[in-house]
């Protein structure tokens, strides 16, 4: 009997073993995809099972026919005006006619006012049209087989270029021009150029989406245009980009640096430099150029004018208060930190955010109170309400921060509401500051901006943009409405210096209720007449449209010590071009802000008409206007099919960091085992019968 069992065991194991060996052969019932993939992937079937490599891989045929895109950026920075020429060449490598649709980012304050389409030696000038009308013109040309291009705005910092009827094997080049003003903060001048639209989180329930939508996400009831702001990406696609900058700073520069990329600088003369992006590394992150004047030359004032037709335009940039004049505030503060620990923060972003938060907590004084609210799909506050910043509470805050993991969705709304509604009345007056640390990768910007606008009251809202390509539009707008300031942190090494600058702003009182007044005989309109609170090191920028040029400008405001009152001489002006465009762009922003805060349909309609008119007058792409360029003669024969393809962006692999989980599921039943044992038992029974017969003989 024992012998039989041993034999059975031996048979049993050899069978199960041989099954495994047998199955080590390639799975032949899968039809081969192509001979190439088999040659590449089916090298050694036995090794495959033990090392677990890929059995079959779909050869990406779509990649071979993907539209190629080459981008050239040329910037002309004169003083505080940056004029940018963005050239995009779309090449169609496939054998069919295609339409390419490319979703790309621009700075959130860019005034896009020109589009040209280049076909051979011909240049076709784009026209500004009302959005729907522009779309109709483009569609008609596309249908007629004419080469056409269309630039639309999806968000102030997200645009779409559509280029129709690219012939097989040929290219169409479009040139987009925009203008922006230079940012001045803490005596440093800077411009940012975003390279990629990062993957945005889309909240809400999916709703009907056009079948020809090219985005990764379907539209939702909360983001009704989600499919337009979620461009597909591909890790292997090549999207070369070159940047060339002519910098005429208007003063002797001390330093010129690119924060995240390597550049080469050629001195044309002492005030004129030529800057080029060196290589193509780290193209998925924002390009930032920072320049500073030599120490004793820090300008307090810059005034530029331009005359166009009968109108004068005047731009004033002033740093009316020096750091030293704003004395350190002794007012105790209540600081609420809101930290984003959603999936998009994974990796370096989360590290930077944690480091920044830990530094911030450590710097709080005993008289201050604080709380931390962590959010991803849901939110978790550290304390139910703000607690005194004493040692034990600060310690639990630091432990809480260290334990944060980046995963889940990006749903900041409830966290922000909690920050506002957990407000308490204390015996003494506290200065309440909310600090929002995030990469801002959301697509429902307006819900968030609206929430802050509605709940802000006397609180201040500061934003810290974390990571490679933070959503600057969201960050700056929140800080504007929240009467706070925004800061970018793109690298761990930047955390300390950037946070120190922010603390100076947090700890010193701001100049509030700022008004700019011109002499009474001047008839002037200020483009954006609400000037955000001014913190140490910040600069006021104002653009006026006026009938004559004034000599003086009065700045008034409220400071901690009392009223602030300063009259500055602006008789020394320099002529500049493009001030009118900046005026139009700022006026547009003001009207859009008003539009966004209106809920009444009729009033909205009026606002829309005003915006459209202004944008058409200043030739600007906006929420309601687009640029469209059309070729005169058709080039695609009527019978040829036109395929519409999304121009994929290069996938940011550093962000794309899939979670690795240890799989524990047991995915087989005992069915085979039971059947096998049953079969063996029956077999033994049979054998026993045979043997007995033998014995009988």
């Amino acid at each position, binding site marked *: 009997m024992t012998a039989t069992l041993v034999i059975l065991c031996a048979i049993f194991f050899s069978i199960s073993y041989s099954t495994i060996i047998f199955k080590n052969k390639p799975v032949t019932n899968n039809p081969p995809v192509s001979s190439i993939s088999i040659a590449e992937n089916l090298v050694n079937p036995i090794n495959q099972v033990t090392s677990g490599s890929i059995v079959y891989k*779909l050869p990406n045929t*779509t990649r071979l026919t993907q539209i190629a895109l080459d981008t050239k950026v040329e910037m002309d920075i004169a003083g505080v005006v940056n004029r940018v020429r963005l050239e995009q060449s779309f090449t169609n490598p496939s054998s069919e006619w295609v339409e390419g649709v490319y979703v790309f980012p621009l700075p959130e304050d860019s005034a896009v006012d020109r589009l040209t389409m280049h076909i051979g030696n011909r240049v076709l000038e784009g026209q500004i049209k009302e959005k729907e009308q522009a779309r109709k013109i483009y569609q008609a040309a596309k249908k007629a087989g004419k080469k056409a291009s269309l630039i639309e705005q999806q968000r102030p910092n997200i645009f779409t270029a559509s280029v129709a009827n690219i012939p097989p094997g040929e290219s169409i080049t479009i040139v987009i021009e925009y203008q922006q003003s230079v940012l001045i903060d803490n005596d440093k001048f800077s411009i940012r150029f975003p390279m990629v639209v990062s993957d945005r989180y889309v909240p809400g329930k999916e709703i009907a989406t056009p079948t020809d939508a090219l985005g990764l996400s379907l539209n939702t009831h909360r983001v009704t245009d989600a499919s337009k702001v979620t461009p597909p990406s591909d890790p292997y696609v090549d999207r070369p980009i070159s940047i060339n900058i002519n910098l005429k700073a208007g003063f002797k520069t001390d330093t010129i640096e690119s924060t995240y990329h390597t550049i080469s600088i050629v001195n044309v003369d002492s005030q004129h430099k030529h800057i080029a992006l060196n290589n193509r590394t780290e193209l998925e992150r924002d390009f930032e150029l920072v320049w500073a004047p030599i120490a004793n030359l820090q300008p307090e004032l810059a005034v530029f004018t331009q005359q166009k037709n009968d109108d004068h335009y005047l731009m004033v940039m002033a740093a009316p208060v020096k750091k030293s004049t704003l004395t350190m505030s002794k007012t105790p503060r209540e600081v609420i930190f809101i930290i984003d620990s959603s999936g998009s923060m994974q990796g370096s972003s989360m590290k930077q955010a944690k480091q920044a938060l830990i530094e911030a907590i450590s710097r709080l004084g005993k008289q201050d109170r604080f709380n931390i609210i962590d959010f991803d799909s849901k939110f978790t506050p550290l304390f139910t309400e703000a607690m005194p910043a004493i040692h034990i509470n600060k310690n639990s805050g630091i432990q809480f921060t260290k334990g944060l993991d980046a995963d889940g969705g990006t749903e900041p709304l409830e966290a922000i509401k909690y920050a506002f509604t957990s407000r308490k009345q204390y015996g003494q007056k506290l200065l309440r500051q909310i600090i929002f640390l995030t990469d801002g990768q959301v697509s429902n910007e307006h819900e968030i901006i609206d929430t802050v606008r509605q709940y802000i009251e006397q609180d201040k809202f500061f934003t810290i943009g974390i990571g490679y390509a933070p959503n600057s539009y969201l960050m700056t707008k929140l800080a504007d409405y929240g009467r706070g300031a925004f800061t970018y942190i793109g690298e761990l090494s930047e955390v300390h210096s950037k946070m120190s600058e922010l603390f100076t702003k947090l700890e010193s009182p701001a100049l509030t209720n700022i008004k700019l007044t011109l002499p009474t005989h001047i008839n002037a309109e200020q483009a954006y007449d609400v000037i955000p609170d001014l913190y140490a090191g910040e600069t006021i920028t104002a653009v006026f449209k006026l009938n004559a040029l004034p000599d003086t400008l009065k700045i008034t405001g409220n400071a901690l010590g009392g009223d602030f009152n300063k009259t500055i001489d602006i008789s020394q002006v320099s002529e500049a071009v493009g001030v009118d465009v900046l005026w139009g762009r700022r006026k547009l922003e003001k009207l859009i802000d008003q539009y966004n805060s209106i809920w009444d349909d009729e009033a909205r309609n009026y606002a829309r008409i005003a915006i459209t008119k202004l944008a058409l007058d200043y030739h600007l792409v906006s929420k309601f206007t687009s640029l469209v360029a059309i070729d005169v003669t058709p080039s695609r024969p009527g019978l040829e099919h036109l395929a519409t393809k999304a121009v994929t962006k290069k996938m940011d692999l550093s962000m794309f960091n899939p979670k690795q989980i240890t799989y524990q599921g047991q995915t087989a039943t005992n069915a*085979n085992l039971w059947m096998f044992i049953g079969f063996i038992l029956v077999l033994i029974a049979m054998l026993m019968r045979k043997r007995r017969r033998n014995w009988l003989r």
Partner: protein
Amino acid sequence: MVKVILLVIGLTTFAYGTYLPVKAELSQLLIRHAWHQSIETGTSIKPWKWADMYPVMRLQSTKHQQDLIVLAGDTGNVLAFAPGLSPFTSQNNTSSTWLVSGHRDTHFTFLKDIAVGDLITTTRLDQTRKNFKVSDIDVIDISKQTISISDYESELKLVTCYPFDAILPGGSLRYVVTAKNNLWIN
């Protein structure tokens, strides 16, 4: 006498073995009923009173004539009745990986016939559908390797034990079928 006992035990054991796949088939009927009720009522309905699981999505493949209801969770008691969605992956996050496990000898037997390029359709309780195209088929050793879960890319991973006709359950090899949801691939 011994012979008869052996024969009886043998046949019973064999029958029990063949019963397991049948049970899995039958339970799908009850689960399907719960699925339709869940859609109608808008709440999660359990397939039977004492069940501790509820349906979350429907998985279909026309080519392989499969129409399965997936339950939440991937523990043994779930997988005995239906394929299960891993708690690591939420069905509510539509731009992430959905990791679905099933028994190699019941619901997921069809995976051995699946080929790159095959289409799999999912339907969630709110009736939103998604099409997935099989892009990779891997065999991994779970004692040494991990399975990657993306928070950004919409994909479906179907996992079952490997080899398909091994006699002993509990091996460490898994057959992983990855299917991608690419709305933009023409």
